[in-house]
């Protein structure tokens, strides 16, 4: 039995997980149109390799990774490429971005695909290349390219692989459902991941509010894989928080879990890796929780990536209240979608359609009363109140000194704030401000060096010209001295002779000039 540690702070918001009936997984009827954004992960967007009008099959790569920090996008079914262009996407900005729109033909024909027969016979590099080509990015919510995360072993030996089935955010039950329905696939995926990073131990972490998932995972895990459970608290599922809970160790500031020999992966990612390696099947579908009291039939659904949110809402019986809101992600860290035409992407774990009574809009922010509840709630042991003041003052030095970048944006501080201050938004804006200021500093130093280099070059060129002129002058003087005649007198004499000649021609009669 593993010794479970506690993390500082944390909150216990109403869980509301039963609403989406975890454990029951439905399949979505094939939508008529899929919209596949090029930016479904952190890093560089993928680049389209198909043209409008092309016919594609399921599993066909339609956009390739542009850099190592990028992943490919595949067609989830067969059909015709209808359009490549800007389309609303699921992003906090509400801006449009490049998408490939696929008109599905209903026949769902797939490219033939076959996996690796024995992954242990392959090198980890080969398997990582398969993972990148299969378009796998972390399905937990951040969307970090999985192949890049697996490079962790280059930073030192990895002892433990943690499959993070914590799913601590209220309402969301996608991982819970996946653990109940596909426990053996998760285990198989975890074994492949452990082989790639060279981890000897695998720990499956499940919060104690998911007894069914825990039972299913324990049954599937066998003897060599440990299934750990621990008390429910938000945000135990944060990568760094989970590591502290399970091991008592802390990830160093500015470091990654690999620095202490740990790699974390989401259960959904483990299944995607298994499908890619064992079946050669790219990531084209995912489990999404459709929940909220504005839905008449909430639940978990396996949907093709690119399904418009409105299609899913219709499927779940959306009864739009006044001022309807659909939140992408959970109630703590998610954001309201600007348009329901936006499609679901690799990081969409939940679509929450609450009624106004269920999840009221935030009240207007009042003044900070310095109560300190936020500092008690912060799982990263920061001082949210101080950060709030420095964020308002845009005091870059103090923000960095108070470890702004250790903030995981979990929203616990804003949740406990009696003055309804949107603290997380202050930190997100401040992070962007600090990053921007650093880049500007870099740019301005660069510009200063270039300006100075140019100044000295221009001065040098002027000096050279001056030197050449002086040289020519000296040469002319030397020449004149050698021939023994005064160049000025000679020039005057030449000018006088020319004048005389001109006067002569002008005197000649019959000349029209």
């Amino acid at each position, binding site marked *: 039995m593993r010794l479970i540690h506690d993390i500082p702070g944390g909150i216990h918001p109403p869980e509301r997980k039963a609403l989406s009936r975890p454990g029951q997984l439905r399949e979505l009827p094939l939508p008529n149109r899929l919209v596949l954004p090029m930016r479904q992960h952190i890093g560089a967007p993928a680049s389209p390799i198909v043209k409008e009008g092309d016919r594609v099959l399921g599993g066909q790569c339609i956009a390739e990774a542009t850099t190592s920090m990028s992943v490919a996008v595949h067609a989830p079914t067969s059909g015709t490429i209808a359009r490549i262009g800007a389309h609303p996407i699921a992003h906090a900005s509400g801006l449009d971005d490049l998408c490939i729109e696929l008109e599905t033909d209903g026949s769902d024909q797939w490219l033939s695909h076959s996996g690796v027969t024995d992954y242990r016979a392959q090198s980890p590099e080969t398997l990582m290349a398969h993972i990148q080509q299969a378009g796998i990015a972390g399905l937990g919510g951040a969307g970090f390219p999985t192949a890049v995360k697996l490079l962790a072993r280059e930073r030192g030996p990895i002892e433990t692989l943690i499959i993070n089935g914590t799913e601590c955010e209220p309402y969301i039950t996608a991982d819970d459902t996946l653990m109940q329905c596909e426990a053996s696939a998760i285990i198989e995926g975890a074994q492949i991941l452990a082989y790639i990073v060279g981890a000897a131990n695998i720990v499956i972490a499940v919060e104690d509010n998911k007894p069914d998932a825990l039972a299913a995972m324990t049954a599937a895990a066998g003897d060599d894989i440990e299934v750990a459970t621990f008390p429910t608290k938000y945000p135990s599922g944060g990568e760094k928080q989970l590591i502290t809970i399970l091991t008592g160790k802390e990830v160093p500031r500015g470091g990654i879990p690999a620095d202490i020999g740990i790699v974390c992966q989401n259960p959904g990612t483990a299944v995607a890796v298994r499908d890619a390696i064992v079946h050669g099947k790219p990531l084209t579908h995912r489990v999404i929780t459709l929940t909220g009291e504005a839905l008449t039939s909430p639940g978990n659904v396996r949907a093709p990536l690119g399904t418009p949110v409105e299609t899913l809402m219709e499927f779940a019986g959306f009864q739009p209240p*006044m001022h309807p809101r659909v939140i992408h992600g959970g109630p703590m860290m998610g954001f309201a979608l600007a348009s329901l035409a936006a499609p679901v992407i690799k990081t969409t774990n939940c679509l929450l359609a609450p009624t106004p009574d269920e999840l009221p809009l935030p009240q207007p922010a009042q003044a900070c009363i310095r109560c300190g509840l936020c500092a008690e709630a912060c799982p990263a042991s920061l001082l949210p109140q101080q950060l709030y003041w420095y964020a308002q003052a845009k005091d870059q030095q103090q923000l960095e000194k108070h470890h702004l970048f250790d903030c995981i944006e979990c929203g616990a501080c804003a949740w406990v704030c009696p003055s309804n201050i949107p603290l997380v938004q202050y930190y997100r804006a401040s992070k962007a401000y600090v990053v921007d200021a650093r880049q500007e500093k870099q740019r*301005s130093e660069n510009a200063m060096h270039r300006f100075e280099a*140019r*100044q000295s070059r221009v001065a040098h060129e002027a000096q050279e010209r001056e030197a050449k002129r002086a040289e020519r002058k000296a040469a002319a003087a030397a020449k004149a001295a050698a021939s023994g005649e005064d160049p000025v007198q000679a020039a005057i004499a030449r000018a006088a002779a020319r004048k005389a000649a001109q006067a002569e021609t002008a005197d000649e009669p019959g000349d029209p000039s």
Partner: protein
Amino acid sequence: MLSNDPLLAALLALLSLGIIFGALLGFASVRFRAEGNPLAEQVNGILPQTQCGQCGYPGCRPYAEAIVDGDAINKCPPGGEDTIQALADLLDVEPLPLDAEHGVEKEKLVAYIREAECIGCTKCIQACPVDAILGAAKLMHTVIADECTGCDLCVDPCPVDCIDMIPRHSGIAHWHWQLPSKTTGIIASDRAAA
């Protein structure tokens, strides 16, 4: 004799001390002379290095030197309020609002050459203070966007007006959260509509 005249003794002692320390200070001021003005260096580090000349000086360093000599700190539109605040902190003076005579704070721009229209006259290359334009006579020119400071100095010399100033940051990749607005959201339906 000195022992009889304490006043003279004191005077002599002070005089000789004065001569010794004076000589030491004089030696130190020659031996350890600081190259340039260190304060101007610091001021220059705060200025945005656009080299745009909107302050009326030919570049950021000349303006930095002028500030040290007592010029106003609010003549730099590209730096904006942040730069004025930083200068005020450094020099311990009151931060002033940006002097509108020299321009207003705008979003960050970069020059963009419409390459089909460029005739290859090299005039913009000569105007660029940071050598961010690439090209040669009668050949197309282009701007190295990462090096461009957005100073605007290449736009006027262009005889065919083929240079545009476009926003440096646009699109979803450069979007980021803004600080929450303090004024809106008192009425619930306003917040819902927003």
